[in-house]
């Protein structure tokens, strides 16, 4: 089996290779899924994304900070079923403010330079998700968990 370090490296590789993630939020027991551009820190403790404050997901996050995020390597081919790797992350979201916001925006725009105008807009929030657990799915149905000891 893979060691914790091997699994962590697998997560890093996937996060580096993927630009988009699906974020799940909820309000009143109704789940809601959205596509976001994300970036992670190398220590795997945080995931960041940017959202306009007018969005449903932002409003959901204000009322319930618990989120699930899904990142995967599928390419919309049949072979995805045996080749794709998928990670579900659970954690707690909050909005970060300056000066930290500026540091994170640098990290974010290094990965998504085309989103500069969007990300720097005063109407957008930079969301930080403190990861609690990673659920790594490989070989269709093999699932390993990595929990962060906080």
């Amino acid at each position, binding site marked *: *089996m893979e*060691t*914790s*370090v091997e*699994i*962590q490296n697998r997560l890093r590789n996937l996060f580096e290779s993927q630009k988009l993630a699906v974020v799940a939020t909820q309000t009143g027991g109704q789940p809601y899924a959205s596509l976001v551009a994300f970036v992670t820190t190398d220590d*795997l403790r945080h995931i960041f994304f940017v959202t306009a404050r007018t969005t449903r997901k932002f409003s959901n996050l204000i009322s319930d900070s618990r989120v699930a995020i899904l990142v995967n390597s599928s390419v919309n081919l*049949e*072979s995805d*079923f*045996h*080749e794709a790797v998928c990670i579900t992350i*659970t954690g707690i979201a909050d909005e970060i403010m300056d000066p930290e916001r500026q540091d994170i925006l640098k990290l974010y725009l290094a990965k998504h330079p085309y989103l500069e105008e969007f990300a720097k807009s005063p109407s957008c929030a930079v969301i930080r998700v403190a990861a609690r*657990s990673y*659920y790594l799915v490989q*070989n*269709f*149905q*093999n*699932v*390993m*968990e*990595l*929990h*962060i*000891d906080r």
Partner: protein
Amino acid sequence: MSWIISAEHIRQADGPRVGGKGLALALLARGGFAVPKTLCVTSETYQEYVSRTGLRERIMLELNRKAFKDMRWEEIWDCATRIRNMFLRKPIPEEISSQLKEAIHTAFKGKVVVVRSSAPEEDDAASSFAGLHESYVNIQGTDAILEHIAKVWASLWSDAALLYRQEIGLDVKKSAMAVVIQEIVVGDKSGVAFSKSPNDTSQGVIESVYGLNQGLVDGTVEPDRWILDRRKKTIISHTPAERKHWMIAAESGVQLVALPEKMTHLPPLNTNEACHVFELALEAEKYFNSPQDLEWTYRKRDLVVLQSRPITTLSPQKNGDKRSWYLSLHRSFENLKLLRQKIEHELIPAMITAADELACQELTELSDQELAGEINRRWKINQKWTNIYWEEFIPYAHGVRLFGQIYNDAVHPEDPYEFIDLLTRTEMASLERNQMLADLASEVRNHPALAKALSAGQTEGLDPQFLEAVDRFVEKFGDLTCAVTGGTQCEQAPGSLYKILLEMAAHTPSETGRQTSKNKDALQEKFLSVFEGEKKKTAVELLDLARSSYQLRDDDNIYLGRIESQLLAAVREARQRIDAYHHRKSNKKIAAELIQVVENLDHRPQFQPPHKQTPDDGFVIQARQLIGQPAGPGLAKGPARVIQHTADLADFKYGEILICDAVDPNMTFVVPLAAGVVERRGGMLIHGAIIAREYGLPCVTGIPDATTLIRNGDEVTVDGYLGIVTIGSSEL
């Protein structure tokens, strides 16, 4: 798109489409060699079929359940069986099949044919797949030919082919298969010819048998062998075979029968014919510009080339080529019948005699020196039987596999392991043992005073009849916690047995067998009704052989266990003496000899230690869902009981999930208490899977690290339909 082409239309550039065999035959025909009429189903047809039916990804999913390097051969066989069944059950799409049917009908008009594999990666200079993919002889009728095309396609994924491709590093994703359909040439004598000998480049080799050469190719019929001088084109030597059988065309397929008496005295080829065959091989070598391995047959006076391929390795077995070993794992029906005779009439009785003879010997009467010698002797006897176990009993297990294949070919069942239900509920030694145990438990259940005394650990004054029954049990099957693989450390007190009996007594007994014999009869009828006449007779024989093979899969371990326990008895005696000497501090020299002998026996496999967390890096790793193989259908949930040592079995509680490295036949007594079974060792036909099926328990095998990733008491769900084990509850 043309899915099938006639040999005369095949050009050199078609190689990747028609495979080595197809191309060689087309080129031979063009070069004026006599070859049978040939059609070739291209590799594109295969690709189109697996794409349209979704089989391509189903195969990849099957092969990617776990890392190939972690799969045991038996698991690879299971994988291959499931894949083969997919091919049998997915019809060729109409658009393709109608074109194939038309071409086949036009070319052969109902004549009998041979359907051969011709994988594009086969027979090139770097890799020889000779013998790894299937060929079918004596097939008649368009529908039957189509069915056999699918079987040849499936053989691209046979266990031997998978192993070999892995070994030589070919990418399975790029594998494809063309199929050659040839008019059959029913020769009087056939064989192979090597234009250049693998052992001596100045020589060539011819092997020949009477009848069809299937018998020669699969090793069932021993061939006459000639060594020839390449330069002079003369015979250097002839080694006659012990000519007993020949392979002839049967109603459909082939049949091995006794060779007529007068033919047993005559070699299949005379000198002229042998030289003629060799000249043909040399001509083919010249034509292809490389040494050739030729299959040929004589029909009356006509010499016909059946196929020709380059000799891929002139130094056999180089680079540790294990193909022959992979192939040896498959035994033909004829070969298995002979093996059965040997096992049932020679080996098993000899094994029982060996164990009895050892049991008769009074160890306490031996001097220390004699005891040391006796331990060595028993070690050798045990070793001998262990070797026989691997060389004869393990290959005999292929009887079950062969039956499975024939059953699946005949019935095309949805569950490729349905055939096992026809083999279960045979009289297995471990089931007899478990029944005795159930009877003892029922005694305890019906007598509360007895249960109370056992719970309190009071064995004094127990019902003598009960104690006698316990003694009889221990005498026959040994101490339960003293399983063969961990026997050197076993306990001697019956305490563990009482614990198990109390646990069994506290719960309703589990009945063996999840299906009625009526179901079994229906399955048997379903299987046999596919055959008629001679073939039905063979099917009945095969079923009988499979049952014997299935039963032996269990019993051989018990018999081997008896011999090993005799070795252990001698070791125990030695240990006791060593301890005694240690106390008396005398006679040290001989004691040292005994110590040496006992130490030398320290060969037993160690259990894996429980999984250790990696150093504290802030992350805690935990398995959630592990994929293995579905080995017994059903869904069960319960606390895990991880068996690290045989002594752990004594703590087994009703309703727990048995998690172990491998279910040893000697430890299956806890299975009736279990709600499900999870094994690290993989395979559908391994002992744990067989016993779980007997008791109708969900079972998943082949979970790497099962005993280290799962901890005692973890809530575990066993999905025996999908082969998945889930650990923990659904909460995040």
